[in-house]
């Protein structure tokens, strides 16, 4: 007898008085939850197959479907929680690693939610961003140690120029970029949406380790090309087509381990883009086998700079781990123009659950530690810091910048804008929203024109909010906020947390 040890996570609550048996739910569910019974004209739903993606609920024309959490009636136990039990049942049956998608969902403290932003009252005027200029343009890249200005070229002329050689910079119209998500892990329509939105808004998207699809060559001016341990899709043309190059060492969701795109997802197009045989597993090793030290990293950075003739910033992405501050210091000294730090809440297409939920540190603490360390060493200006790992709102963006970031990467937030409901089943390749899948029946559900519009709306809305918050604090340029921790106060944090974050507790004046 087959024991059914894994109970349903969700329940499809169908209001029979509203259901018109139109079968939209049947046609839209890739998990085959709903089934139309031709004999009696009713639709039956199999709860155990439901992943909680809400596709059917969103498209039901009469609103008859509601997806509800289905609590299992385990004997209450604060230690042996249903999650532990279910994972053990699953593993006892399969002998495998429990896989999951998206970022860590455990109730660890979210420091963003314990940090409050400042505003002006009486002694310093606030600024109305709708009436006065507000600068949120951001430049990513190495800044010079000092700026030497040339004297006025002609008497009476007000033209000033500088003599210092500037390193290549990325110009962002907003301090937000789209995170590295490869074509393969997400659909081409999803990547196209990101590329088109980045190009139109004046920011950047990142190829992940997926290579550059031929359809995306029109957006290369807004592309950061990634070089990761598998080196998929990397050649001289690829490196030179992007606006910047990013070396991926680690990912917040799975620090220390590599990636694995199963052969089923490597279709003709993915195989061409990644430059690997069709149907073969795309395995990214855990380490770069040519990088075992900061000196090795420096070699790769300069190899990439040589390949791109020193015309493009070269950055390094690492996950936030315990030793992140000294590692960041090493990365700056190795010659990187920007560092991307990915916190432990960062998303993924697939990761072992045990790694996602237990490895790494929060981005807030990592960012504060890195910014502090680089300042103490006098090398903060040599590098731009981009942080990632669950930036959920414009408030998180502004707090990150006040903690010392130059810009932020948004991945999950961008996918949510495209329709993602964070069901965490990316690794199944059955994404009903047409995002984390290569199934042609599902990928067409994401119309890149609609996707682009939604992403542009999100960036526009966040820009407005950032300007409002800056104006409220009496600041008219995002530059003036960077690393300005006096604008932040902690709430409900202990002394140690406050000292790592480098902020005062709420109630303490200047």
């Amino acid at each position, binding site marked *: 007898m087959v024991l059914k040890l894994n109970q349903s996570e969700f329940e499809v609550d169908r209001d029979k008085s509203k259901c*018109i048996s*139109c079968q939209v739910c049947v*046609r*839209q569910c890739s998990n085959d939850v709903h089934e139309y019974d031709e004999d009696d004209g009713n639709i039956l739903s199999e709860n155990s197959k439901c992943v909680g993606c809400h596709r059917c609920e969103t*498209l039901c*024309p009469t609103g008859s479907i509601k997806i509800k959490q289905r609590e299992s009636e385990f004997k209450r136990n604060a230690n042996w929680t249903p999650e532990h039990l279910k994972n053990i049942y699953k593993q006892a049956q399969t002998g495998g690693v429990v896989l999951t998608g998206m970022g860590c969902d455990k109730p660890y403290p979210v420091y963003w939610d314990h940090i409050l932003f400042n505003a002006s009252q009486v002694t310093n005027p606030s600024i109305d961003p709708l009436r006065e200029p507000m600068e949120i343009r951001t430049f990513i890249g190495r800044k010079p140690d000092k700026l030497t200005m040339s004297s006025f070229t002609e008497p009476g002329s007000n033209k000033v120029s500088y003599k210092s050689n500037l390193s290549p910079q990325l110009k962002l119209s907003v301090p937000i970029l789209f995170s590295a998500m490869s074509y393969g892990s997400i659909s081409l329509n999803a990547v196209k949406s990101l590329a088109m939105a980045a190009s139109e808004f004046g920011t950047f998207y990142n190829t992940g380790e997926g290579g550059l699809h031929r359809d995306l060559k029109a957006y290369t001016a807004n592309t950061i090309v990634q070089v990761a341990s598998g080196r998929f899709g990397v050649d001289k043309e690829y490196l030179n087509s992007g606006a910047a190059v990013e070396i991926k060492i680690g990912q917040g969701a799975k620090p220390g381990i590599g990636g694995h795109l199963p052969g089923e997802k490597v279709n003709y197009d993915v195989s061409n883009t990644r430059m690997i045989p069709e149907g073969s597993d795309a395995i990214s090793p855990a380490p770069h086998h040519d990088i075992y030290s900061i000196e090795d990293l420096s070699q790769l950075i300069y190899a990439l700079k040589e390949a791109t003739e020193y015309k493009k910033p070269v950055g390094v992405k690492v996950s936030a781990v315990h030793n992140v501050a000294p590692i960041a210091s090493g990365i700056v000294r190795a010659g990187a123009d920007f560092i991307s730090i990915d916190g432990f809440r960062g998303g993924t297409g697939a990761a072992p659950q045990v790694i996602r939920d237990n490895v790494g540190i929060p981005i807030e603490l990592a960012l504060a530690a890195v910014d502090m360390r680089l300042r103490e060493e006098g090398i903060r200006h040599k590098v731009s810091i981009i942080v990632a790992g669950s930036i959920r709102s414009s408030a998180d963006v502004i707090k990150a910048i006040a903690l010392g970031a130059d810009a932020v990467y948004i991945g999950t937030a961008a996918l949510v804008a495209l329709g993602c409901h964070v069901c965490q089943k990316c690794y199944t390749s059955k994404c009903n929203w047409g995002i984390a899948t290569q199934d042609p029946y599902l990928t*067409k559900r994401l*119309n890149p024109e609609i996707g682009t519009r939604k992403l542009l709306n999100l960036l526009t809305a966040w820009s407005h909010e950032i300007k409002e918050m800056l104006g409220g604090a009496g600041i008219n340029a995002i530059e003036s906020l960077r690393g300005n921790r006096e604008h932040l106060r902690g709430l409900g944090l202990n002394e140690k947390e406050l000292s790592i974050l480098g902020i005062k507790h709420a109630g303490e004046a200047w």
Partner: protein
Amino acid sequence: MKKIFIKEEYCIGCRLCEIYCQVKHSKSKKILKAFKDETDMLSRVMVEEIGHNSFAIQCRHCEDAPCVEACISGAMLKNKNSGIVTCSEDKCVGCWMCIMACPYGVIRRDLSSRKVASKCDLCGDEEYPVCVRNCPNEALQFKDI
């Protein structure tokens, strides 16, 4: 004139266009009432599907409409101003010559009361046809030729 354009690469085969078309051409115009109480609901837009390829097709309102040519009772008419081809149901005698003549197969037999030909009227009284307005993926577009 404005016509409906089909972007088959974004048709997801949900058939919401068919559902809203049926409601629009029902007696009550209310989705629950129409589907629960009315019989023989007929959509004037049809989703064609083979594998993952699908598209919704409705009357193309042809310039030189063969159905108008074929109509023996003068029920099928093309409005000279709007360009919309409509079937005047009180004149239709149900000979189905229009169905024989239509190159797109988008005219159907409405057998619910009198036998008449049923086809897309571009929702003449609406700014956008309901199939276009309710397509969740913008696979149908209503625009000038």
